[in-house]
C-alpha cells in the first residue's frame, strides 16, 4: 500500500499551548482516512500542516517533518502549488465574496482554464458532486455569501473539488448539512477516493465508521491509536479508543 502523506515526529505548539505532540502517521493513497477525537485534540492543526496554511498563524511553531508524495512540505519552493494540490473544507463555511459560479471557477481559471464551455462543465460537475447543483443552478450569479449555511458548506466542498486536488481534507464538512444530503455527499466521497486521498476529520464517530478505510484516534494532542477502521471499531488496542467509539468516553 502506497503512502501518500506521512507525518514524522510532528509537534505543533501555539505559544505555550501544545496542539500536537510527536505525531507519526502514514496516510495511504486513494483511501479515506478518518480522524476522530474530542474537541481541542489537534485534528484541525494536523490538517493545516498538510497544506501549510499553518504558516498563516503567527504563533504556531512546527517541528518534525510532513511529507506529501515523499517531499518535505517545508522544503517546497512553491507552497502555492502545494495548496492547489490539496483541497480543504473548513468546519465553518466560508463563501468568498464572489458569485457562486466564480467561487467554483476561481481555482481552475487560475490554473489556466479559460474555455467557457469547459469551465461551465467543470463548475456543474463540482456542484453536482457537492450535491448543490439542483439548488443553485438558477442562481449561479448570486453572491456565495448569500447562500444558507449548509449550502455554503457544500459550496466550499465544490470549490475544494474544483482544482482536482490529489488530497481532499474535510474538516467537519457535514456540521451544517442535513442527514439526507450528508448521505448523498458520503456516496460521492466513496466514489471520489478513486481519484484522490481523502482525510476526513469528523465528530460523528459513525461517519468515520461508514466511510473510512483507516481511522486514527486523537486525544489531548496525542495520537492514541491508528489502524484499519474495522479493527478500531471492534477491537481497538487502547481502552480509551474503545470508550470513545462506543460512546462511553469521559
Amino acid at each position, binding site marked *: 500500500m502506497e503512502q501518500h502523506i506521512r507525518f514524522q515526529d510532528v509537534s505543533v505548539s501555539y505559544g505555550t499551548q501544545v496542539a500536537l505532540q510527536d505525531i507519526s502517521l502514514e496516510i495511504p493513497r486513494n483511501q479515506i482516512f478518518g480522524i476522530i477525537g474530542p474537541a481541542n485534540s489537534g485534528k484541525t492543526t494536523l490538517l493545516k500542516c498538510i497544506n501549510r496554511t499553518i504558516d498563516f498563524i503567527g504563533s504556531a511553531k512546527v517541528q518534525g517533518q510532513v511529507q506529501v508524495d515523499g517531499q518535505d512540505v517545508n522544503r517546497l519552493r512553491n507552497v*502555492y502549488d502545494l495548496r492547489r494540490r490539496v483541497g480543504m473544507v473548513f468546519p465553518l463555511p466560508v463563501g468568498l*465574496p464572489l458569485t457562486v459560479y466564480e467561487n467554483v471557477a476561481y481555482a481552475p481559471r487560475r490554473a489556466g482554464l479559460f474555455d467557457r464551455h469547459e469551465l461551465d462543465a467543470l463548475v456543474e460537475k463540482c456542484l453536482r458532486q457537492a450535491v448543490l447543483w439542483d439548488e443553485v443552478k438558477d442562481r449561479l450569479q448570486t453572491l456565495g*455569501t*448569500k447562500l444558507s449555511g449548509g449550502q455554503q458548506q457544500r459550496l466550499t466542498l465544490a470549490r475544494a473539488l474544483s482544482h482536482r486536488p490529489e488530497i481532499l481534507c474535510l474538516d467537519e464538512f457535514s456540521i451544517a448539512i442535513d442527514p439526507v444530503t450528508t448521505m448523498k455527499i458520503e456516496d460521492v466521497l466513496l466514489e471520489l477516493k478513486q481519484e484522490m486521498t481523502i482525510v476526513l476529520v469528523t465528530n460523528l464517530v459513525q461517519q468515520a465508521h461508514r466511510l473510512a478505510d483507516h481511522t486514527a484516534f486523537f486525544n489531548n494532542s496525542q495520537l492514541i491509536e491508528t489502524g484499519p477502521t474495522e479493527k478500531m471499531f471492534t477491537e481497538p488496542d487502547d481502552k480509551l479508543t474503545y470508550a470513545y467509539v462506543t460512546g462511553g468516553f469521559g
Partner: protein
Amino acid sequence: MPEADANREPSPPRPWSMLRTFHVAVDWCEPLVEWIIRICGWSAILFVFAIFFFVFREGSEMLLGGLDLKEFFTSPNWRPDSVVRPQYGILALLAGTISVTGLAMLIAVPLGLGAAVYVAEFAGPRSKETLKVVIELLAAIPSVVWGFIGYMVLGPIIIWATGAPVGINVLNGGIILALMSVPIIVSVSEDALRAVPDSYREAALALGASRWEIVSRVLFPAAKNGLLAAVLLGVGRAIGETMAVLMATGHAVQIPHSLLDPVRTLTATIAAELGETVSGEEHYGVLFVIGIVLFAIAFVVNLTADLVVKGIRGEKHD
C-alpha cells in the same frame, strides 16, 4: 419566624444600604440619561439644519433676486470689487476646486489604499504599530501648517523641478491636499480591511491564492463599502479644505490650463473675502451663495456615496 423579627430591635444600617440608595437613584435618572443621549443624537441633524438655514438666509436675497445665475455659473470673471460693474462668475473658482481636488484624489486614493493594504496585510507587528502612530500624527497636523509647507517648502521644489515661474499652483495644492487626505483614507480603509474575517483569508489561501490575489480578489470585494467610505471621507476633506489651499494654490482667478497654473478655490475665496465685505451688501450675499454651492457639492458627493453603497448592498440581497 415573623413574630420574632418584629420584636427584635431595628438593626443598624448595613454598609450596603447606601449603595442601594445609589442604585435607586440611578434607576430614577435612567429616563433623564436617555433624554440626554437622545438630544446628543439629534443635535447633529439640528446643527446641519441650523447651518443650512443660516447660509441660505444670508445668500437667499442674491440667489433669488439680485444675481444673474447664468453669469454666476458660466462666467470665469470674478470681479467683485470692480467699481464700474462687479462681476460674479464662479466658473474659474469651480474649475480651481475641481482641479485641485481631482489631482489630490488621483494621488491620495492609490497611495492611501496601498498604505492601508500594507499596514493591514503585509507589515509585521512592529512596523504596523509604528506606521499607524505616524499616520495618525500626520492627521493631527493643522491645515495652516500644511499651507505653510506648501508655500515655503513644496513651492521652491516645484520651481526647481519644473522651471515654473511660480511654485504655488494646482500641483502644489493637489499634493498638499493629497497628503492631508491620506491619513483619513488609510485609517478608515485599514479598519475596513481588518474587519474582513480571517476565515476568508484562510479559504483563499487554501485555494492556492497568492497574497496579492487574496487582497485583490477577496479583501477588496469584501471590504468595498468601507473602502468607498474611506475614499469619500478623503474627497470631503479635500473639497472642504480652505487654509492649506488658500496658501498653496496661488489664489489667482483663472481656469487652469496646466498643472503649473495657479488657481483659486471656492472655499479660499470665501475665507479671503468675507472679512472685507459689509453684511447685507451684494458681495457678501454672493459669498454665501458660494457657500450654498459648496453645500450642494457636499450633498451630491454624500448622496452618490450612499446610493453606491446601497447599490452594493442591494446586489448582495438580490
